[in-house]
């Protein structure tokens, strides 16, 4: 929740561009995310000085250096913890965490899940390229089973995390997924994340042109993407395909792909997406849709309102003051058994 000052002036994209040289590889998907964020920030009605970007370690974690706001490029995996501390003492700030698949899900996995369950009001962008880029090409917690990398020359024997499913299971109140190159979709998802009060988790599939090029090409190439992605829209049926004729139907908890018009299937048989359902069960079923059997769901999986952590923390103080009165240091030092020596 940002106690935005009403008139932040007339900020534009260029107000959020720093004088630092961007050091990502040419063609890196991070450029596109940076551009969308820089486009979004001036539109939020928040003064520039009230934004803080905090990152960990990895290619994506260079992000804060390129956004002209307050920022901290911290240590590996710990950005959620740092951001939580900041937000607890400065709830009026708009705090953003930028992280990667290794940063958030390997070394920082613990902080990630605890951030989700607490619902601290901050935005967390996970740029998932399914590879370690900055350390030059080792497999990550989201790399596919069997993937050959420098540390898995015969193939990875780790089964990957599904970050969206993980976030939902940890109780996140806003969970979304987008891809780097679909600027319109990404821009809209980021806008919704910014508007959410509570932890807003956005997984962005991001292409690493150097170590994992083409990891998401089926989702970004015009020829293939409609067959491979399922665009989620609140209140709309789960429909995909070039002709938008195919959809997802649940038999109990088991999903299946059906074709509208075939075998007597009508649109009414399809699952309808409810991002605002209090119970995250269906969102978790949708999050579990994965290739090769199913298209990749993109969009907002869940967006529900729950009290934010910093608000509850503030309320503890209100309760404590109501119970004990405004703290007086003098009385505190004099508490317990005291006696006077004269």
């Amino acid at each position: 929740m940002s106690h935005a000052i009403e008139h932040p002036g007339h900020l534009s994209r260029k107000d959020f561009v720093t004088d630092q040289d961007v050091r990502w590889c040419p063609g890196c998907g991070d450029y596109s995310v940076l551009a969308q964020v820089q486009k979004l920030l001036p539109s939020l009605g928040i003064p520039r000085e009230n934004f803080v970007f905090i990152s960990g370690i990895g290619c994506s974690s260079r992000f804060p250096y390129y956004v002209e706001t307050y920022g901290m490029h911290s240590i590996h995996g710990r950005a959620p913890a740092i951001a939580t501390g900041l937000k607890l003492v400065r709830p009026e700030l708009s705090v953003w965490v930028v992280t990667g698949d290794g940063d958030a899900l390997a070394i920082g996995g613990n902080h990630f899940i605890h951030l989700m369950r607490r619902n601290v009001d901050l935005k967390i962008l996970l740029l998932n390229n399914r590879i370690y880029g900055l350390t030059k090409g080792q497999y990550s917690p989201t790399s596919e089973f069997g993937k050959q990398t420098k540390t898995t020359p015969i193939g990875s024997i780790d089964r990957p995390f599904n970050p969206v499913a993980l976030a939902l299971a940890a109780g996140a109140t806003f969970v979304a997924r987008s891809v780097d190159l679909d600027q319109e979709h990404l821009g809209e998802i980021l806008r919704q994340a910014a508007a959410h009060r509570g932890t807003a988790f956005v997984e962005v599939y991001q292409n690493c042109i150097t170590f994992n090029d083409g990891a998401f090409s089926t989702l970004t190439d015009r020829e293939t993407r409609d067959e491979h992605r399922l665009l989620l829209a609140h209140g709309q049926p789960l429909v995909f395909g070039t002709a938008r004729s195919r959809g997802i139907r649940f038999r109990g908890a088991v999903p299946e792909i059906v074709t509208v018009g075939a075998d007597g299937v009508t649109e009414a048989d399809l699952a309808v997406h409810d991002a605002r359902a209090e119970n995250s069960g269906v969102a978790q079923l949708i999050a579990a849709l994965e290739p090769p059997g199913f298209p990749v769901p993109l969009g907002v999986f869940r967006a529900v309102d729950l009290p934010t952590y910093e608000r509850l923390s503030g309320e503890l103080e209100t309760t404590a003051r109501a119970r004990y009165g405004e703290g007086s240091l003098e009385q505190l030092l004099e508490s317990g058994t005291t006696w006077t020596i004269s």
Partner: protein
Amino acid sequence: MSATDHPVADAPPAAAPPRRHVEELEQVVIRFAGDSGDGMQLAGDEFSRSVAAAGADFVTRPDYPSEIRAPVGTTFGVSGYQIQYSSHEVLTSGDAVDVLVAMNPAALRINVADVRQGGMVIVNTGAFSEASLAKAGYTSNPVTDGSLEPYRLSPINITELTAKALRGSELSKKDIGRCKNYFALGLMLWLYHRPLEDEIADIRKKFAKKPVFAEANVIALKAGWAYGDASELFPVLYHVRPAPAEPGRYRSLTGSMATALGFVAASELSGLRLFLGSYPITPASEILHSLAGLRHFRVTTFQAEDEIAGVCSAIGAAFGGALAITTTSGPGMALKTEAIGLAVMTELPLVIVNVQRGGPSTGLPTKIEQADLLQAIYGRPGESPVPVIAARSPADCFDCALEAARIAVEFMTPVILLSDGGIGNSAERWRIPDIAQLPPIPVRFRTDPQGFQVYARDEHLARAWVRPGTPGMEHRVGGLEKDFVTGDISGDPLNHQRMVEVRAAKVAGIARELPPLSVEGPANGDLVVVGWGSTYGAIAQAVERGQRQGLSVAHLHLRHLNPLPFDLGAVLQRYRKVLVPELNLGQLSRLLREHYLLPVAELHKVQGRPFTATEILDRIVEVIE
């Protein structure tokens, strides 16, 4: 007097109370010991409160196992609480025990060796069954076999007497058994001539939500008192006069509470919100408990998911402009190491409190040790200077918390405050300071964007503290090396050297701000005993005794361990020899040798117990000769 002279007393005699006289004592050391479920900490605490209220000076030391409730009757499940109180200044919880209250055979077995010859041993014979004697490793009953002959034995069936007193109570048999600590307390309050009224009022307050328990405990307390009064076991009552002290208001304070209060005071004196990010760990959790109960102050506490999140959340809060602290013990320090490096690099104020315990690894979680000094000073990758200070006593934690906070914000640096499990849990008498007399902690957030450079430095070589939300001063900090002035990322070789050197110079410069050292004892002579941390009391006592024996010995106790005080070298030169007693294998001694190229004699103890004054005095005599 042989143990067999006394029949085992099961009930007070019915006759009129015997006539007694009251003996004035200068000091007394009492230890309560029993099963970890016997409520010995409570009995000890209550006894301390009572003697404190009578104006005696005192130091207490709880000693409990790391198991919450070890199997009943085992030696490893024994929980003890020792108090020394006196009509003059008290510096430690005492060496030899004058009175031991042992609630079961295991407690007797573990503790009896610490009782002085001729000291009193009160045993609860109700717990001396054959099975429990065997469990404690006794092959015969020490109450009747004469092995306690060197002591004045008072065998009392506390279990049965408590049960009798509570006959007809609606409590279960098990709950009645739990009241026996109050019987023991009542007896001790009687023996040491303390009134019951305050204690009764306190029990009713403490058990306000369970009036049945309150009344049962009051009955047990009164029964203990009445038993003492009627019994012939105690021909003499004891009284300790109030200790002279500076006029003022006093209270009893543990090191953990003093630390918490010190940081709340630092928050008020600096005008900053206090933020504590912490993960529960013995013996540091008490500070988190205390501050979590003070949310009506400008205090935010955050129980993080792990030690790393504890320190990192504090770094985030510091970036946001709060007075940020994290509290932990040895294993947690190891986990926080990388983040402390980040605070060094970003030059943000932060206090890390390490309540040391026996190590390495999980070590002895509830026991005292001071073996983290070198880790505090050096234990980080890279050239990573961090100021380190150490508290010498429970009450000193208050002043050290203020000092750590002051250094952190004045020099824009993380500061490590070392305490230990002994200090944290021990309590002593504390003169409540006048808040108006406490030195302010000035904080200046920079708000002027004109000419602002992230790493421009002031006269202390500290960079400016800028709160996010300040217009026109948006900037990024981080763990990567930064340009000496602009704060932009810099991999320039000479810039790195310059930054490493300026960070070191900043911390070294703190020494210039420190007051001159003060030595207790002669300004020059044969020997100076140098200590740090919780060994203060034992060293002070040993040195005083040495001086009374005519030895030329002085005591210097260091609060600042990094940087070392500017005049330390000169002070050490004034003595022929230097001795450093430490609860480790020689860490400060190593630093002194390294800094001043002096021979340094050592005394080590790593037994999970504090030094006795006698151990230090023996070494003093040995070194001087």
